């Protein structure tokens, strides 16, 4: 408690200092430039300048770093204050900070930086989506892909048209300032504000640990509705200028939708395959491995954006395609690097997005109209609920495991809007109603993030919604998952129809025979999944053991002895070993372990130190050996008082008489 108390004022002090810095930085346009030379007139000789102030030179990187630092210190600050972060989701707190900073900057008369769309779409959004896509749990996603697509496509279309239509009606009824809003503008507004936002969903759902099915439904929907949003947005934007939409345009829009989504997926898949293929050859340049992952993914996003395809879907496709092959090829360190860099960037991006959202709210021009804004917020909720209920009714006819009312409620309530809607609004060309729209969008975003974000956690508790399973998958579960896959495929075969499992099985076999051979280096390409899982588990356990330094972490006191049938261990003649032989054995054991250490190469900036855990292939058996050695040491210590001598037992373990 004492530590916390000390931390709080310190964090706050630094925050205040930083805010002052930021304000000072943005306010200092005319930093005096000392030391400028006048080439033609060297009449006076000034004293040699000891200290100069040249801010303009480093201005941009300095400000960017300062903003990022501020964002991260805020994040740090929240976790120092325990109670607040449990009630209020982080995203809300960050928006509030943004509001404060924006207010401060405005108060001192400066122009606050707005969340401009280039910054958002090209720099802040991709890391979050890549992080989500790379670590997307593929199995639940593919099992529910039908449901997700229905929600994403049909649900978003319903939301957009319903909202647009009803808004138009309301505007006409209301008259006055709103009468000038025509149908197309309303539809455009509807299409912007109807899409569920992946950033907001991630930020809120991260903290409530809901079960896998619901998480993947809402999150998958937020990712896949990007294609719909892109098409609708462009369609209405184009024709909002013209004024009319013909049937032909409608048909073209449908075609465009397929092109945008499938094209995005294709681009992503191509880059994914390229990335996987590249990673096959990186065994000698481990240091740059993570960069390939990041760059290929970013290129996939940018390439898709060039053609106005769905960048988000492209990024997801790239990450999902690349991942299994890259993970089989890269070293353990690169895997950790990729994981942590992705998490780091996405965390920073998310923080910055929410802070900027707050700042832009204060900065941006606003046009408040009570009717418009309130109707928008209410409509958002109503259309979402209606959409989810209606669609679930249809979907449940096709699902094996139906969605319950509780599930429907969470899906409906979890439909949060976020920064994407705001940026799309920002992107609008100078439309007469732009400020009105922006205000309404910001209000909806605030409402969903604050109200829905804060209340979803107590609601989840109240409704006793199933939470996420916390423990890691065990080897038994993995065995049975595979067993079930084959069993269900087999039963489908007996029943005679080609179902879901049949096609999945075919895809797996195709993957194993053709794709893996091209994209995975060396022997790992032939490794069945169960064995890779087992190896990974062993590796993890061995690392845990080495890190903890002792055998204290070994699960329980159960060992092989307890499960091997007694017949094997009885009747084993243990030869008496001489002291000399013992010494020899000890020497062999010791030197074996030392050999790994001697593989250190001479120091070079571009080399990683050789590490026993670097190449799983070569060192797995060695690790197993080490693990066994630790285990046998422990058991030797335990059984010191029993009949057999410790050395004899050591001998038996090292040279087991195979049954």
């Amino acid at each position, binding site marked *: 408690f004492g530590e916390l108390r000390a931390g709080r004022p310190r964090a706050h002090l630094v925050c205040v200092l930083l805010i002052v810095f930021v304000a000072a930085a943005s306010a200092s346009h005319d930093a005096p430039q000392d030391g400028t030379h006048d080439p033609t007139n060297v009449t006076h000789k000034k004293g040699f300048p000891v200290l100069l102030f040249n801010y303009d030179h480093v201005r941009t990187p300095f400000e960017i770093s300062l903003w990022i630092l501020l964002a991260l210190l805020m994040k740090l600050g929240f976790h120092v204050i325990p109670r607040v972060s449990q009630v209020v989701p982080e995203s809300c707190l960050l928006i509030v900070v943004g509001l404060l900073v924006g207010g401060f900057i405005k108060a001192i008369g400066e122009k606050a930086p707005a969340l401009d769309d280039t910054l958002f779409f090209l720099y802040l959004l991709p890391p979050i989506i890549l992080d989500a896509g790379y670590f997307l749990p593929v199995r639940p996603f593919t099992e529910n892909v039908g449901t997700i697509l229905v929600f994403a496509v049909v649900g978003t279309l319903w939301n957009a048209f319903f909202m647009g239509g009803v808004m138009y009606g309301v505007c006409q009824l209301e008259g006055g300032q709103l009468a000038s809003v025509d149908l197309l503008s309303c539809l455009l507004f509807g299409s912007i504000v109807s899409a569920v936002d992946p950033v907001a969903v991630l930020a809120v759902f991260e903290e409530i640990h809901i079960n896998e099915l619901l998480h993947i439904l809402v999150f998958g929907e937020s990712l896949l509705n990007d294609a719909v949003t892109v098409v609708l947005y462009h369609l209405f934007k184009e024709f909002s200028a013209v004024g009319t939409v013909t049937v032909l345009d409608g048909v073209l829009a449908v075609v465009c939708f397929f092109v945008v989504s499938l094209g995005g997926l294709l681009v992503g898949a191509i880059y994914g395959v390229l990335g996987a293929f590249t990673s096959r050859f990186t065994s000698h340049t481990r240091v740059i491995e993570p960069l390939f992952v990041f760059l290929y993914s970013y290129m996939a996003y940018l390439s898709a954006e060039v053609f106005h395809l769905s960048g988000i879907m492209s990024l997801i496709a790239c990450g999902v395609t690349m991942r299994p092959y890259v993970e089989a090829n890269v070293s353990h360190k690169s895997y950790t690097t990729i994981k942590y860099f992705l998490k780091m960037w996405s965390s920073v991006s998310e923080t910055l997005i929410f802070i900027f959202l707050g700042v832009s709210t204060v900065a941006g021009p606003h046009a408040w109209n009570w009717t418009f804004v309130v109707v928008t917020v209410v409509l958002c909720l109503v259309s979402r609920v209606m959409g989810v209920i209606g669609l679930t009714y249809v979907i449940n006819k096709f699902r094996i495991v139906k969605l319950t009312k509780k599930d429907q409620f969470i899906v409906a309530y979890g439909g949060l809007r976020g920064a994407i809607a705001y940026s799309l609004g920002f992107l609008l060309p100078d439309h007469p109603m732009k400020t009105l729209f922006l205000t309404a969008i910001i209000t909806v975003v605030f409402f969903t993030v604050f109200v829905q974000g804060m209340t979803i956690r107590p609601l989840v508790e109240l409704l006793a919604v199933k939470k996420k399973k916390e423990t890691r998958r065990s*080897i038994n579960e993995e065995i049975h998952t595979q067993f079930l896959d084959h*069993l269900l495929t087999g039963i*489908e075969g007996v029943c005679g129809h080609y179902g879901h499992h049949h096609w999945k099985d075919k895809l797996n076999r195709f993957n194993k025979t053709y794709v893996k051979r091209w994209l995975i280096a060396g022997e790992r390409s032939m490794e069945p999944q169960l064995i890779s899982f087992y190896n990974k588990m062993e590796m993890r356990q061995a690392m845990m053991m080495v890190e903890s330094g002792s055998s204290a972490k070994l699960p*329980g006191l*159960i060992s092989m002895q307890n*499960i091997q*049938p007694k017949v094997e261990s009885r009747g084993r003649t243990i030869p008496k070993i001489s002291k000399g032989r013992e010494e020899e054995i000890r020497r062999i054991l010791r030197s074996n372990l030392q050999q790994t250490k001697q593989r250190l190469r001479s120091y070079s900036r571009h080399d990683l130190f050789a590490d026993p855990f670097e190449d799983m292939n070569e060192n797995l058996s060695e690790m197993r050996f080490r693990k066994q050695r630790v285990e046998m040491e422990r058991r030797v210590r335990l059984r010191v008082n029993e009949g057999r001598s410790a050395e004899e037992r050591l001998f038996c373990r090292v040279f087991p008489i195979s049954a």
Partner: protein
Amino acid sequence: MGASQTRTEDVFQELSDKTGFSLEQIRILHKRFRQLSGEEDTISKENLEKIQALDKNPIRNQIIEAFFDKRNQNDGEVGSSREIGFQQFVKVMCHFKPPTLKMTTEDKEAMRREKLRFLFNMHDTDNDGTITLDEYRKVVEELLSKSGAIGLEAAKAIADAAMLEVASINVPHMEPHEFYEGITFEHFEQILKGLEMESRMNIRFLDVDTSTMHCGKSQ
């Protein structure tokens, strides 16, 4: 002719009430049964072995054996039949039905237990009520059987690790001299608790007859 048809309809209705399948689903299953048995009233192991779809399946033999296992009929008998009739066929298929929306938590628990029992019977080949280390090793070997030589060596290690895990979770404090006999049904339930069998071990049963819509072999 008419009398026998109404009799079959009655039989179907009775089966539908007993097992929970819809009448249409039972009719489709019956059609498939006739196809497999070659228009006979019973099917034997040879009939099932002829199914092409099962060729590439590593646990083919276990699946076929499960149909003839008397324990899955819940009659209290043990052993293996040589032939089964339509009723027994449907009874086995019953294990793969999905849960309905109207089921209570207790119903779901019962369904889960039934499905786990089916899996347990598949592993416990000697009918003694426990899965011993050898039986478990065999299971993993079969799973990896289509993967060549790498499979066999690793199968032993994997089965051992899995058994260790079961023992550690269920009987955490065993003395070094105690011996863990085998996985009992309770332990089996315990280790697979996280998988939620009632949501996973399901296949879609057709409500609409699509067997005539196949282009190509449907066997």
